[in-house]
């Protein structure tokens, strides 16, 4: 309860009694004044006084009542306060002060007025409630209400009997629909004219069945229809709908008949070789439905035969039909293909492909993952395609490995060949046509149809041939490109051709087409005729156009005569050696090329394994040649064959990526273990030098981390770290490794300290003997090994040439001695080569080395300055001066770019702020400050609902309490009344008894007296 803290009340006085007194006094109800007035009034006459007293009393009573009302308002004991959490000035909050007593009283009074009245009336008065349908609904018109009520009644009744509901299904009698009017004609019922049926019941109907209809008041639209009328209308409507449905059905049947009639034409168009479609017999009996439709349409043509036909024949025809439908369902529909792409488009695609590969490469270089998602998607796509067998590729979908897969499938399953158009002419119509024939089932086809086919076949055959040839000529260019970048794909074409031609053969095999015959998939392995040889040569040219091209393009008559076109695939290196014995490098390359063509993996079989063996043999042969074993008496290496072999290995590596990386890794690890085990400096063999060079051509060397190239770099670095070797050959090997390493890093421009060290120390080691060896030579390379004095160039003025690779790395002990290369000529060449490589490195690393360029190449400049430029001759002099000026220039520009480092500079991190979130238009009075009005309204509604709910519950409780109280009171009253009654009765009885006793006593007395 609220506390009596009203300050105004407190001021006025202490207890409630006192306050009452003061208030009465202030109202002149008590106190001296009133006493005085009564005194005066006493003096007046009594009647007047009485009336005065009455009026005074009355006014006083009124006054008191009003005071009471006032005091109740202000009585602090009857007030309830709720303390607000925050006192805010000038803010009015509802409900801080509550008057529960007043509220209760109000409620009580209200209940008395309503609830008590009801309670009193309970079980005493009756009421009528209309529960008919729609009675309470004000929106419905009377008609609607009637209709609904009727329907409801009906449905209530018909729920049980819906199985026998005749409305929905059309009943028939003797095969005729009962719905047909004719059936009722016999029954004497007049037929309703269909044509004039406009949904109204016609006059006659009204006349005969509706008992003459109604009077004119009928016409009054406002008149309420009777139930009967309405029923009629409903029935009429339902009948009308039925008719409409029937009509629709008939229309459909007509249409079906029409289509059935046209079916034959369509089939003719499709050129179906059906045994039933021969001209002798009617092609096919119409289906029952068709027959019916035809009958309906009055077409007699097919009908007689239908009629005549025995039942068996009917069944037969049905079977045919079913079969035909099935065939149609399974028949692969010919799809249009994309048009052939123009050369520009092909070029564009190729460009995009290369760009994508380059993007991948750059990402790998930065150490980011390549677009894996794309790849994964492609893989799953491919898998899907492999499973589903749906071919989405286009006719000229070249250079795409997926196409290879698709083509493989084409080889397996002929029926998937799409229609191909070229210049608006259907290229492979015969494919489609032969398809139909094949699906015809048995071979006993009709002659005329065959003839037809033959005709069209030969016609189209010639067309195809010409277009084929055109295509070949046109595609030559694109083919070339393709073979160059991916040999395997290049071969796809031939596979495709073979496949196409294979179908050609089936339809109309002209014996003159020898070439295509051999290329056809199964005939290929045995023989290659001349044309195929040409093809091999062509692709050979494409493989390496600079080498033996001239001889290959215009075939040298003698070579062509000697070189066979088919070879047995070598199974070992020895086989290969016998195969290529006494062949020129170009011929060896051709042989390899032909082997590759012969055993193209796309041709099936175990060609892939054969090629893999070939690949192993080639890498072995590379080593064999590099070690000089192929020319025991020669003093130089055969560079040309190495180069050609490398071409083949690079091309094959596209097909065997895992094999090539295994091969490369074994090479790398072999050298690594040798270097790691030995305590002395180890220099790689020539074969290894060549292999490492080849690795750079095969793999993507710019990757940040590469499973082959990174280990290779480490191994090569460790070799270079050993310092300059003991012989000029070692020196040459070192320079070669430097160049290989530089090539590896050329694209990614990564810095290799070992390279700078090696080249610097090499230059210093080669400096002429005239310059005195100092204990601390220029440069920053380690001085862990002292170069042999034999390295010193005697005469700097020896004209410099290119470094003779073949001679320098020729196998030792076979006619050539190390003294042969220990000449000033070679040394000067090495010196110039080293300087040149330093220059290239400086230019390449300018960017990546960046700010510390001076620190890296400053020592190199010092080294180069040690070279007596004036003494050099020709190219050497030029090279050294160019490189020197280049590096100095780069150093100068690097100096200009240099700024102090600011590696830790980053965006300042803002200090965390804790400013409260400011809400616009905030009001403490508003309970809900949600800016979202919708949500706000919802919350409001919820709150209201809750409030109302609670209020309702409370009211109900109070009602119940009220009712209970009233009952109790009633009961009490009843009890009291009963008691009263009983007391009265008992009293009566007592008095009666008393009277009777008194009478008896008197009688006794009287008796006694007597």
């Amino acid at each position, binding site marked *: 309860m609220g506390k009596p803290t009203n300050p105004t009340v407190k001021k006025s006085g202490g207890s409630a009694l006192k306050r009452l007194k003061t208030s009465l006094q202030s109202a002149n109800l008590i106190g001296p004044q009133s006493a005085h007035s009564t005194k005066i009034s006493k003096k007046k006459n009594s009647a007047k006084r009485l009336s005065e007293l009455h009026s005074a009393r009355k006014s006083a009573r009124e006054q008191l009542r009003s005071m009471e009302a006032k005091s109740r308002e202000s009585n602090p004991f009857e007030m309830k306060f709720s303390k607000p959490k925050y006192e805010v000035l000038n803010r009015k909050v509802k409900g801080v002060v509550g008057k529960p007593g007043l509220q209760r009283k109000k409620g009580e009074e209200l209940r008395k007025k309503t609830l008590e009245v009801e309670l009193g009336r309970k079980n005493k008065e009756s009421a009528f409630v209309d529960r008919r349908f729609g009675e309470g609904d004000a929106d419905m018109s009377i008609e609607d209400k009637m209709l609904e009520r009727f329907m409801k009644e009906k449905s209530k009744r018909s729920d049980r009997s819906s199985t026998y509901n005749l409305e929905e299904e059309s009943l028939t009698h003797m095969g005729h629909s009962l719905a047909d009017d004719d059936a009722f004609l016999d029954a004497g019922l007049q037929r309703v004219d269909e044509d004039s049926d406009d949904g109204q019941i016609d006059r006659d109907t009204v006349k005969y069945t509706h008992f003459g209809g109604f009077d004119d008041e009928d016409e009054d639209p406002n008149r309420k229809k009777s139930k009967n009328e309405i029923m009629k209308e409903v029935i009429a409507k339902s009948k009308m709908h039925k008719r409409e449905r029937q009509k629709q059905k008939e229309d459909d049947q007509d249409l079906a008949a029409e289509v059935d009639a046209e079916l034959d034409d369509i089939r003719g168009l499709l050129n179906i070789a059906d045994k039933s479609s021969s001209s002798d017999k009617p092609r096919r009996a119409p289906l029952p439905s068709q027959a019916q439709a035809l009958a309906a349409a009055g077409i007699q043509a097919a009908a007689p035969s239908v009629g005549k036909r025995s039942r068996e024949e009917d069944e037969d025809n049905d079977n045919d039909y079913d079969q035909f439908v099935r065939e149609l369902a399974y028949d692969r529909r010919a799809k249009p293909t994309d048009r052939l792409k123009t050369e520009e488009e092909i070029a564009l695609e190729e460009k995009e492909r*290369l760009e994508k*590969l*380059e993007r991948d490469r750059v990402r790998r270089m930065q150490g980011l993952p390549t677009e894996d998602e794309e790849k994964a998607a492609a893989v799953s796509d491919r898998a899907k395609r492999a499973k589903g067998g749906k071919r989405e590729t286009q006719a000229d979908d070249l250079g795409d490995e997926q196409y290879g897969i698709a083509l493989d499938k084409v080889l397996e399953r002929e029926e998937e060949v799409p229609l191909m158009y070229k210049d608006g002419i259907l290229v492979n119509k015969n494919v489609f046509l032969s398809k139909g024939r094949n699906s015809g089932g048995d071979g006993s086809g009709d002659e005329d149809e065959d003839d037809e086919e033959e005709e069209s076949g030969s016609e189209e055959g010639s067309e195809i041939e010409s277009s084929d040839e055109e295509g070949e000529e046109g595609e030559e260019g694109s083919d070339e490109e393709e073979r*160059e*970048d991916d040999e395997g794909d290049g071969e796809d074409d031939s596979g495709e051709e073979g496949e196409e031609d294979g179908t050609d053969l089936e339809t109309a095999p002209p014996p003159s087409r020898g070439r295509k015959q051999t290329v056809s998939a199964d005939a290929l392995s045995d023989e290659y005729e001349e044309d195929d040889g040409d093809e091999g040569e062509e692709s050979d040219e494409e493989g*390496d156009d*600079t080498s033996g091209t001239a001889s290959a393009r215009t075939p040298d008559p003698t070579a062509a005569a000697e070189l066979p076109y088919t070879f047995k695939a070598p199974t070992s290196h020895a086989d290969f050696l016998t195969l290529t014995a006494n062949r020129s490098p170009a011929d060896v390359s051709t042989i390899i090329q032909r082997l590759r063509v012969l055993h193209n993996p796309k041709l099936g079989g175990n060609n892939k394994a054969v090629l893999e063996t070939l690949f192993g043999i080639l890498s072995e042969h590379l080593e064999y040649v590099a070690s000089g074993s192929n020319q025991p008496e020669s003093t130089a290496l055969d560079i040309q064959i190495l*180069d050609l072999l*490398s071409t083949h290995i690079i091309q094959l590596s*596209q097909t065997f*990526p895992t094999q090539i*990386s295994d091969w*490369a*890794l074994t090479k790398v690890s072999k050298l690594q273990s040798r*270097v*790691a085990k030995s305590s002395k400096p180890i220099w790689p063999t020539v074969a290894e030098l060549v292999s490492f060079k080849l690795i750079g*051509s095969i*793999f*993507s060397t710019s990757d940040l*981390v*590469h*499973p082959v190239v990174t*280990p290779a*770099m*480490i191994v090569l*670095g460790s070799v270079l*770290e050993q310092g300059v070797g003991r012989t000029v050959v070692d020196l040459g090997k070192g320079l070669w490794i430097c*160049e290989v390493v530089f090539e*590896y890093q050329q694209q990614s421009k*990564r810095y*290799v*300290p*070992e390279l*700078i*060290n090696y080249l610097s120390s090499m230059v210093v080691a080669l400096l002429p003997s005239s310059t005195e060896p100092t204990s601390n030579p220029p440069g*920053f*390379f*380690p*001085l*862990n090994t002292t170069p042999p004095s034999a390295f010193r160039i005697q005469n700097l003025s020896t004209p410099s040439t*290119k470094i*003779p690779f073949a001679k320098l790395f020729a196998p030792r002990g076979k006619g050539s001695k190390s003294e042969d290369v220990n000449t000033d000529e070679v040394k000067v060449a090495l010196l*110039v*080569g080293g300087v040149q*490589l330093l220059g290239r490195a400086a230019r390449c690393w300018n960017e*990546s080395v*960046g700010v*510390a360029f001076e*620190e*890296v190449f400053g*020592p190199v400049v010092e080294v180069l300055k040690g070279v007596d430029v004036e003494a050099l001759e020709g190219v050497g002099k030029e090279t050294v001066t160019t490189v020197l000026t280049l590096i100095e220039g780069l150093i100068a520009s690097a*100096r200009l*770019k*240099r*700024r*102090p*480092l*600011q*590696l*830790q500079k980053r965006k300042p991190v803002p200090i965390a702020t804790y400013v409260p979130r400011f809400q616009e238009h905030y009001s403490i009075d508003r309970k809900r400050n949600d800016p979202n009005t919708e949500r706000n309204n919802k919350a409001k509604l919820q709150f209201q609902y809750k409030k109302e709910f609670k209020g309702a519950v409370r009211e109900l409780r109070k009602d119940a309490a009220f009712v209970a109280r009233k009952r109790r009171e009633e009961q009490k009253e009843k009890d009291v009344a009963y008691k009263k009654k009983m007391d009265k009765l008992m009293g009566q009885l007592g008095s009666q008894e008393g009277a009777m006793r008194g009478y008896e006593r008197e009688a006794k007395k009287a008796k006694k007296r007597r």
Partner: protein
Amino acid sequence: MAAPKVTKTGASATTPKKRKASAESAETNAITPDRVRQLAKECLESATKLNNLVELLDNANGEVSHTALVALQHVFSKLLERGDLKRPKKSNTKSAKDPKTKVTEWLRDLRGQFVAELLMHLSAGAADKQTTALQILLGMVKHESEHHDDFQNDLFERVVEACVSNDNLSENVLELLIRDINAFDDVRYYFYKDFGKYLNAIVPAEVGAEERRSKRRKMTVDPTKLPAVVNQGLSILTKLNPPPEKDEELGHCMANVSGETSKGQKKAQPALQAHQHRQAFTECWLAFMRQPLNDEVYKQILLMIHKRIIPYMTQATLLIDFLTDSYDAGGPLSLLALNGLFTLITQHNLDYPDFYKKLYALFDRNLMHVKYRSRFFRLVDLFLASSQLPAYLIAAFLKRMSRLCLNAPPAGILAVIPQIYNLLKKHPACLPMIHKEGDLPTLPAQDPFDYDEADPMKCKAIDSSLWELQVLKSHYLPSISGLAKIFEEDLSKPVYDLEDFLDHSYQSLYETETKKKEDEEGTAAALAVHVTVTGMFQRTAKSSFWELV
């Protein structure tokens, strides 16, 4: 080597007659092992057959040398036990010799010959003979020591000499010797002592040679043998146990020194005093270090000096000269001397002026390429660990280290980068080297750092920037380029544990890289993109300086 010969010739001169006689008898009887045994048996059985000894000695070098030598050892040990070899009284020598004395003297002579024979075998014989000789000699030393209750150093000294001066001592002998030396405390003591004495004898005459020379025997050491002596000595010394700390640990001796000696215990046995042991050890090592050592031996000594030599020396400061000289020698020797020097500085109060300056000088162009790089960087980490070092000094080291990285192998770079990081963390005053506050100047920055300045105080490294680290970001090895990027990130990592980085090599890096590949099996190596495939030579033929086409 020379000494045994002298004694041998002397001995042979004394008994020409009897030898001849025995030689004649030897001719009659073919010598077989059985015969040898027979002779030895007879020798011991009757005094009259002592002449057999001569015959045995004659055969000591022949086919049956092994049997003969063993037999002789047996005979002489028996004779020793009988007392037949006891030195005759001095007083008797001048008077007419009685036959017994004569026999004794003759026997002693023969024993001398026998020993000489053995030593000759040991110093110049074949491998198996060396082993036999050593076994017999050590056996004799043991037997005689037991007999005399005192270690017979005279004999052992000669054994040591013979072993050490032999430049093709067999492995077996070495092993045997070392086993024995390690097994007995007194043997070890005497070995150190004898070897020290021997080494001192080598020292050229002008350095007070007279005092050092052996008083009893003239020790003339062939200077040409020095390298062999040094190598042999090192291989023995490195395998020997160090002297013990306390007297109580001693006691396992070859000679019977249990205390009940005839001479009483007035004079304690040196072999039982730890101090004596250490003294001998110190002197031996000092003498060894005084020898002209080749680089390999020098490195070996320096490698173990802080662990196996300095702690056992009586006076470690005696090594100061040796270490300082090595430290000043430059190159790898300096790196190795650092360790010993550091021990002296920290544990023996050595005050070494300009230590950091000299350390700074060690960072030269070869440093990153030498074998002992990781060992050096471990020490450098220790030396630069103090956070009280001035920033300019740290800066100088930082700059120098990063400069060396530019021409270093990957393993070296990997060792340096974390160290630079750790130092930067420890010395925030050096942070301007990687990050200069304020706006970048528009003018190019000249590097104030002077690489050639030997004094770290004057090289102005603190004003410079570590541009070199930027180069490493584009190093070809992915782990290095990744590691070099740590300076651009927040320096939030406390410190790197250097041990993870110091011991890399090309091989370990290679293994890491190839292992990585194995881990992610299945991803094929990325191939190069070829627009047109050309041969590998033709691709670069134009720009190449190789004559390839």
